């Protein structure tokens, strides 16, 4: 039976920054904020499915912004999440239709967006394309890259779970996979530019 973990704001931010117990932190965010945030989407031309999609985006954005130290703590986590959720949804509405009232709603609401996160949110569409690009990688490549760059496992740890002759062979494979992904991403300069702006990793 799962023990439900509750967090104070500071503790939650620390857990996310340190990238430990992340599953519990994500579950906590769902339990405490999903229903409240989903109401906004459902009351503004969205349905339950939209609300779920937008909340997933919101959580991903929130975690990455915290890990990049771009959440300054000026507002509460709840307010910050609401801002991300709201602007992600308004961007989605803008994407769906650039005309009429929706455009007006977006343009009005955009003024309230924290400038520090607006670029990130605007890159939603580009990040959606990334999912397709990642799928073009072989399963082996995907597994190695995720293990090394997302799960922060060492080469030795990855070697224990995969069928490679030795550390050097695995290292070479990882380099090739990374280069392959880089080429897939940079094959579309517009996408690369948007992603760079969105993820802000080039700083």
């Amino acid at each position: 039976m799962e023990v439900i973990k509750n967090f104070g704001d500071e503790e939650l931010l620390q857990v996310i920054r340190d990238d430990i117990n992340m599953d519990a932190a994500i579950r906590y965010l769902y339990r405490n904020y999903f229903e409240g945030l989903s109401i906004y989407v459902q009351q503004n031309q969205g349905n339950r499915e939209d609300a779920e999609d937008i909340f997933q985006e919101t959580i991903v954005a929130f975690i990455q912004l915290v890990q990049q130290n771009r959440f300054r703590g000026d507002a509460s986590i709840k307010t910050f999440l609401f801002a991300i959720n709201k602007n992600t949804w308004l961007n989605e509405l803008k994407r769906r239709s650039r005309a009429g009232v929706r455009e007006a709603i977006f343009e009005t609401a955009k003024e309230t967006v924290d400038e520090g996160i607006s670029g990130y949110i605007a890159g939603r569409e580009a990040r959606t394309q990334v999912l397709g690009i990642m799928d073009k990688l072989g399963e082996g490549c995907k597994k190695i890259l995720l293990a090394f760059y997302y799960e922060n496992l060492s080469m030795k740890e990855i070697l224990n779970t995969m069928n490679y002759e030795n550390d050097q062979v695995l290292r070479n494979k990882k380099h090739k996979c990374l280069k392959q992904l880089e080429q897939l991403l940079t094959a579309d300069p517009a996408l690369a530019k948007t992603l760079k702006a969105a993820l802000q990793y080039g700083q």
Partner: protein
Amino acid sequence: MDNNNSNTERLIRYLDAELSEAESEALRTELANNTAMQQELDNLVLTKGVIKNYGLTQKVSGIHQAMMQELKVPAKPVVRSLPKMMMRIAAGIILLVGLFGLYQYFAVSPGNLYNDQYSDYQVATMRGTTNAGDIEKAYSEKKDDEVILLYRQKQNPSANEQFLAAQAYLNVSDLNNAIMLFNSLLEKNKANNTDTLNDDAEYYLALSYLKKNETTKALPLFKKIHDDKNHLYHDKISSWYLAKLKLLNWKN
């Protein structure tokens, strides 16, 4: 080509923080003077960011499904089959009847049933009386104590006088004497094959027993009155009243 591969290798090792401090410093100097190399590093940094973003998205997506199950309150439409609905209605009725029965069980008491039924016996309704004597006069004036006193002084009281005395005893709640006189009147009627005030005596004797909470004696009398359509008080004893008497008898 080899030089390119070598540069890429160094850039990836730099990205993975595997170069020594000296190697890193040398690379940074080189990057400042080599735009193509800096561009490649930027792309690799972006690629690393994309992988991290993808990993996190996958993690959130995996947790999302489980959380939706946990958070969703199933709003299933209530579809009930007819038999189930009938059973529910029947259960509701049984519950109501049960509650009503329970209420009656606790509410029923000798006092309640007595008050429901009792009304003053009116002298004017006396049948077969031609001359108003002193007992009857006192009774008409609601002087129960005087009725009792006069009755005790009578050497040979009539059936009417005995009946009024019994009524007076009942009114002052001297139930033993009231019962004794009503019973005596009934026995005399039986012995003499007469029926003077017989129905009245039966009815008020039953009420006397009831007031005394002797339901086992009151119940057969009330039942007799209820069953006898020719009885003078037949209409006053309904089946519902009889049922409440039975409930009281059972409760006792």
